[in-house]
């Protein structure tokens, strides 16, 4: 197990690319903030699990993937979906239960996906996506495509048998699977220290015989580079790889959770490490990027979301007949 410590040099990237990364971080943050508002306001149905504070994990990993690669997400999947290229509109429509949503309103917040964009419906069973991803990677290997399967899951999922069984088989068959553990220190309200003795999740990989690495999950460039390296290994038959991305959830576990179980000092320490603010500072060290550029991106995101929300609120709901469709192929 190794840890990426030094952050990559921002000047090494093409301006458009790096600004696009920034916009994606902001898009995820603002998307989540709008959704939270709509939810608390009561106009958006269902329940939500959000990823404010974790935007760099999804963004950094998915920036290392091709469209043909597939990701498997969780109940906390909005950021993964946006990072993999799902549209703001199809997602908001889904959240409002509209028939124009990416899952026709049948999936909802916990099951976002779009097969065309390389994301199967997210799995809300903790750990349940890990064997799926291993199986997807098995299919890619058998079909000799160069695709890889990426599975996002949390620190809490590591205790599930599905993790153990899934990563072991990915390892013994050298499958092109990238396992991404977003370690935000908590499984729901339970601190990681209560549920495992060695809380360095990436250490687990070695016991199954493959490579694990722990990365600062709030440094989008560090995540990107670690992901690029892991993706290359997977494509060349060197998979699987386990990436542990250290991050923190700035918002409730779900719905109206006030997070009283997160110690104040811990929260504050992590708020100082906000992935977006940190990346903004990094970007501003470049001659060719001004604060104004970032502000412009922010407002373009705001405008995009404002329009999309208005459209989504008017989007058509399924008709009762749709209840019985899409059960069998």
């Amino acid at each position, binding site marked *: 197990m190794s840890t990426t410590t030094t952050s990559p040099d921002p000047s090494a990237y093409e301006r458009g690319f790096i600004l696009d990364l920034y916009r994606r971080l902001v898009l995820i943050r603002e998307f989540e903030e709008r959704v939270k508002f709509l939810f608390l306001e009561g106009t958006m*149905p*269902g*329940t939500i699990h959000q990823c404010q504070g974790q935007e760099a994990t999804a963004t950094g990993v998915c920036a290392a993937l091709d469209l043909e690669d597939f990701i498997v997400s969780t109940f906390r999947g909005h950021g993964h979906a946006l990072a993999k290229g799902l549209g703001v509109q199809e997602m908001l429509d889904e959240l409002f*239960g*509209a028939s124009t949503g990416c*899952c026709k*309103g*049948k*999936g*909802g*917040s*916990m*099951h976002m996906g779009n097969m065309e964009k390389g994301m199967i419906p997210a*799995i*809300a*069973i*903790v*750990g349940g996506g890990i064997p799926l991803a291993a199986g997807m990677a098995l299919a890619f290997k058998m079909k000799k495509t160069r695709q890889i399967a990426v599975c996002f899951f949390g620190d*809490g*999922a590591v*205790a*599930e*048998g599905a993790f153990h069984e899934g990563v072991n088989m990915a390892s013994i068959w050298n499958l092109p699977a990238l396992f991404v553990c977003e370690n935000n220190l908590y*499984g*729901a*309200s*339970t601190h990681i220290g*209560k*549920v*495992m003795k060695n809380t360095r999740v990436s250490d687990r990989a070695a016991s199954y015989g493959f490579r694990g690495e722990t990365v600062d999950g709030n440094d989008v460039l560090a995540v990107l580079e670690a992901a690029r390296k892991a993706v290359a290994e997977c494509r060349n038959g060197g998979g699987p790889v386990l990436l542990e991305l250290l991050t923190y959830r700035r918002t409730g576990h779900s*719905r*109206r*959770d*006030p*997070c*009283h*179980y*997160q110690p104040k000092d811990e929260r504050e320490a992590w708020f100082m490490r906000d992935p977006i603010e940190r990346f903004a500072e990094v970007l501003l060290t470049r001659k060719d990027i001004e604060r104004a550029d970032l502000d412009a991106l922010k407002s373009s995101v705001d405008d995009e979301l404002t329009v999309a929300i208005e459209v989504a609120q008017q989007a058509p*709901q*399924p008709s*009762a007949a*749709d*209840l*019985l469709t899409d*059960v069998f192929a």
Partner: protein
Amino acid sequence: MKIQGIAEALRDAIAEEMKRDETVFCIGEDIAVPGGWGGAFTVTLGLEQKFPDRMIDTPIAELGFFGMAVGAAMMGMRPIADVQYGDFLFLASDQIINNASKMRYMSGGTCKVPLVMRAPIGATGRGSQHAQSMERYFTGVPGLKVVAVSNAYDAKGILKSAVRDDNPVLIFEHKLLYGSKGARREPGAVDAGSEIPEEDYVVPLDTAKVYREGTDVTLLGWLLMHHFNLLAAESLAGEGVSAEVIDVRSLSPIDYATIGASIKKTGRVVIVEEGPKTGGVSAEIAAGIMEHCGEFLQAPVVRVASPDVPVPFTPVLENAYRPDVPRIIAGVRSVLG
């Protein structure tokens, strides 16, 4: 007497049983975290302060901690294992069905498994994997008792009976009936509060209960559907139809004595179930009725249930999925012919 909701009543029942018997303990995910929620639906909120050593927060490992609860029960403890959503029982079903339920039989009656399991079910805007009705998968499993609590009074009395029972007991609760308040309130929740006696009491694990007397038709249901049956009976009364409403409550075993007595009176039955019709608990009840009191039936048993589809997310479809008062009334009309 005090009025309580199901969550509160369960909380008191657990606390009272833990106080009464040192071998009782709770095990589950996020059930006892300071600053947490007392489980997914607040049932165990604050109990960790009263019983710091007997409220055990687990990793997310349903197969593991249900199996541990079985092992602890075999060694003389009385665990109450809590799953956050009934849908996750599949992960623990090997331990529940292959181990807990068969252990006594396999041992030739030499060991026992005094285990209580609690699981919330019901479609509540969360999508397909946090919504399904799980009763069907456990009704009739030999060696396992299955109950469903529709109101606070039963919840408290049944939980106490379950804790004192020497066999594995699986208790189903409904997310829309907990009476969770404030931030935890569920949209579409129904009031299932009851007057709770001050004194200790139990409710048996093997009896159905008549909640409304009637002569024309018997309405059978449990959990949320029982409440809808009461509403349907009320409006049917307006049309001059007298419906008897029974909370089946005990799903395994099923109380055919109480159900049969009603059918002897009414001759007609509608069974209402949340969850796909095919292979539901209603199927067993319908078949059992034919066997136990088929001679009293004046019309074939009618089942009102959800269609054979997973639970959809969007509210318009979820509401169409869940049987409601109009569909129950339509079922009654059809059985009245």
